[in-house]
Every structure is written in structure tokens, then in C-alpha cells.
């Protein structure tokens, strides 16, 4: 199976606090990989290193390597801006930009220099369809994105990140503030997307990871405890701590 992201001995600290203590993991192409673990386990920090959003934090020290298609995004001379054209990100809370639904989705493509209305129309429609939002939004493209419900906003954020036509999508607890129905819609959308994208889903919701991810990794206190197929991790974990976490003994 093809490896899309190869992380080697990644160490990250903020000031004196070591958040990641040497994590190595291979993320496979066109699969959904779930990162789970209690708060403070370093899983969100890990994905913020992959898309280099970590550059906007202060006092960060990074060691190790992250290869995306043979390019080391940590050490090679690469612009965060061009990297993020290939990596879509969805944050924990839906953050629509204060403008219309259409302009939210067209934001990224316009930055790339796409200004023709006809091309943008196609991108907007395509992205909304992939995020399972087209049906609800097709007649309301010009309303303010701030007027949508939380679930719709989060699908809009997913659609917005798809509009850049990335190869990788990172989702940082995308359903943490959503109701079960909205969560199900996001999960359906993600399952449909994995044929085209490599997806990393960070979540505290182990059931969600079990439902939709192909591979699962369990993080605890800055270390990756266990990694394998979701089936293996959830039915027959090799580590006691993984088992305890999944059975709800802590977390």
C-alpha cells in the first residue's frame, strides 16, 4: 500500500514542555486514518506540524521529519502557503469567514488566481456536493455563512478546504460541537471522499474512529502507543493502555 505521509521521530516542544516525544507513523494514501487519545496527547499538535500551521505558534521547537511524497516539509525549503494548497484543514469549531457561502468556498481558489465566474461556479458546486451540502445550499449560495447552523457551517468548512483540490485532508475533532445527525452527515461525506483523498481524522470520539477509519493510532502523553488497522486496534489491541482507553477506563 502506498504511503502518503511518513513521519519520523517527530519531537515538538512549546517552550520547555515537550508535547510530542518522538513519534513515527506512516499514513497510507486514500485511507482514513484516525488519531485518538485523551486531551493533551499531542494528536492535534501532530497534524498542525503536517500542514505547518504550527508556524503561527510561538516558542515552538520541532525535530524529526515529515515526508509528504518524498518532500520533507519540516526541513526542506518549502513555503507553508504552497504546502497548504495540497493539504485541506478542518478545525474543531466551524469557522466560517464573514461573507457569503459562495465566497467562503471561492476564497482558496481565488487566492490561487482563479477568477472566472464559470470556473468558480463549478468548483463551488463540486465542493458542496462532496461535503453533502449542495442540496441544502444550492439556492442559498449568497446568504451569509454566519447564518448557517453549526452542522452546516462545519460541512461548509469541509467544502471550503476541498475547493483547493488538496491531496490530503486533516480534520481536528471536526464533530466535537455537533449533534449526532450533523456528525453522521460529516462521516458520510468523509467515507465518500477517501477514494480521492488521504484523510487524517483526529477525534476524541472512539466510536467515530471505529465507524469510519481504516487505520487507527492511539496517542497518550505525547507518544504513539499503538497503530494498526482499525479492526485490529478495536478488537485485539496489543497494549494494555489502548485497551483501557477504548473501554473507557480513562480518557
Amino acid at each position, binding site marked *: 500500500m502506498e504511503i502518503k505521509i511518513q513521519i519520523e521521530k517527530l519531537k515538538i516542544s512549546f517552550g520547555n514542555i515537550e508535547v510530542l516525544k518522538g513519534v513515527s507513523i506512516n499514513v497510507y494514501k486514500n485511507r482514513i486514518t484516525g488519531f485518538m487519545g485523551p486531551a493533551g496527547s499531542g494528536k492535534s499538535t501532530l497534524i498542525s506540524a503536517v*500542514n505547518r*500551521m504550527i508556524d*503561527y505558534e*510561538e516558542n515552538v521547537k520541532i525535530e524529526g521529519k515529515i515526508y509528504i511524497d518524498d518532500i520533507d516539509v519540516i526541513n526542506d525549503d518549502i513555503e*507553508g*502557503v*504552497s504546502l*497548504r*494548497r495540497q493539504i*485541506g*484543514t478542518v*478545525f474543531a*469549531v466551524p*469557522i466560517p*469567514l*464573514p*461573507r457569503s457561502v459562495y465566497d467562503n468556498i471561492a*476564497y*482558496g481558489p481565488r*487566492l*490561487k488566481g482563479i477568477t472566472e465566474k464559470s470556473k468558480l461556479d463549478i468548483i463551488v458546486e463540486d465542493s458542496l456536493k462532496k461535503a453533502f451540502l449542495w442540496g441544502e445550499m444550492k439556492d442559498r449560495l449568497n446568504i*451569509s455563512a*454566519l447564518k448557517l447552523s453549526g452542522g452546516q457551517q462545519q460541512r461548509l*468548512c469541509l467544502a*471550503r*478546504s476541498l475547493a*483547493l483540490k488538496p491531496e490530503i485532508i486533516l480534520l481536528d475533532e471536526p464533530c466535537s460541537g455537533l449533534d449526532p445527525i450533523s456528525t453522521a452527515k460529516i462521516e458520510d461525506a468523509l467515507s465518500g471522499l477517501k477514494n480521492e483523498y488521504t484523510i487524517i481524522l483526529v477525534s476524541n470520539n472512539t466510536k467515530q474512529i471505529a465507524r469510519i477509519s481504516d487505520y487507527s493510532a492511539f496517542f497518550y502523553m505525547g507518544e504513539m502507543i499503538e497503530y494498526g488497522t482499525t479492526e485490529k486496534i478495536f478488537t485485539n489491541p496489543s497494549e494494555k493502555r489502548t485497551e483501557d482507553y477504548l473501554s473507557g477506563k480513562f480518557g
Partner: protein
Amino acid sequence: MRVNPRFIDKIVKLGLNAQAFFTVGILIVIVATICFKGFPYINFEFVFSSPEDMGRRGGIFPSIIGTILLVMLSILLATPLGVGTAIYLTEYTKESRFTKIIRFGVESLAGIPSILYGLFGFIFFVIKLKMGWSLLAGVLTITIMILPTIIRTSEEAIKSVPRNLRLVSYSLSATKWETVTKVVIPSAAPGILTGVMLSIGRAVGETAAVIFTMGSSLRFPASLMDSGRTMAVHFYILAREGISMEKAYATSLILVLSILLVNIIAYYIMNRVISKYS
């Protein structure tokens, strides 16, 4: 003895009401006086003709033009400078000794009496740079005078834009500058506009700094190097030298009306911006 808290509540409410009415009352008395005393003397000729006999007769057209030119040019200069400084302070530097010094300087400048700006403008622009009493010297002086207000209000407005919006913009492959121009500035626009409005108010009403730098000639300011007289200065001279109280009140009424007009236009623009970016 314990006082009934409900009674205290009533007293406080009464007191606060009285204060609010007092404030609004003063405003109403001032505006009403100006309207009452100035309105009878306002007509087409007063607005669109030149003054005669030191302003005893005729109109205030050159002063209206002088005011518009002075205020507009100062705002056009000060806004980009001030907003640029605010962007620099909030987006492009980390908090350091240097930014603290800049901020302290800005705050000190905001507190200086306008006559000192006038004196500075007189010595530096009028004498040293040999501009003479001119529209240019006035514009540069007023620009410096209102800059601190624009910087401070813009900085506050920019700071209040949520960090999340910036992060989202970066995550969608925007550069810092694209994020500033497409997300931060539009979101901060209403706050920035408030600062610009305050500055317009200050510039329109300014006398001391203007007399020192732009002079008080009654001519029509046809070029940047011409001296001129703003409405506020005209009003001051008419009233102070007892030339004509009627014309003085009429001038001040035009002044008040023009500020009202500017405010209405500004609110219109603000609503356009808000409806586009919300």
C-alpha cells in the same frame, strides 16, 4: 439600619436617567441655539458666494472649500499612514520594547494640545520648509495631529478580529498580506471608520493649529501653496473680533450640518461594508 435594596435600585436608576438626560440636554441646547440663531441668515448666496467686508456681508464659499480640502487631504494622508502603522503593530511585529515605545509615543501625541501642533507646524512647515501659510502646511499639520487617533482606533479594531479567522485564512493557503487585506481589514473596517470619523470631527473643528499653518486669508484656496480660512477659523474670527454674530452663527450651523452629512455618508458606507462581510 438596613436600606431596602429595591429603594437603592430606584435611586440609582433615577440618578443615571438624570445624567443621561443632562448630557443629551446640553447637546440639544447647543444645537438648538445654533440652529435658531443661524438659520435665518442661511441662503443660497451665503453658501455660494465670497465674503465681503471681512465677512460682514456676502457668504462663506471659500471657507467651505477650504474646509473640505483641508479635511479631505488630511484624512487621505493620515488614514493609510495610520492604518498601516496599526497593521504593522498588530500583525507584523511581536510585542517588544520597540512596539511599546511606538505605542507610548502614539499615546503621548494623542494628548498634546492642538495649539502645540500648530506651533510645530508653523516653525517646521511654514518657516523652516518655507511653505508659508498654505493649505499644504495645514494639511501636513492636521495629518500629524489626527494620526494618533487613527492609529489607536485602528489598532483596537484590528486586535478585536478573532485569531481564528486569520488561522482559517492561512489554512486556505493565504499569505499574511492576503489575510490582512481580505479578512482582517474588512472585519476591522467599522472600527477603523469610527476612528476616521472622530478625526474628521477634530479636523473640521480645529482652529488653533489651522490659523498657525494655513493662515486665515479670505481668498479662495486655488492651490496647495495658497493660504486659506476654514469655517471654524472664520467663525472664530467673526465672533472674536465682533465682526458679525449673525454670520458667525450661520457659519457654525453650516459646520454642524456638514458634520452631520459626513456622519450619514459614513454610516451608509459602513453598512455596505458590514452587509458584504457578514
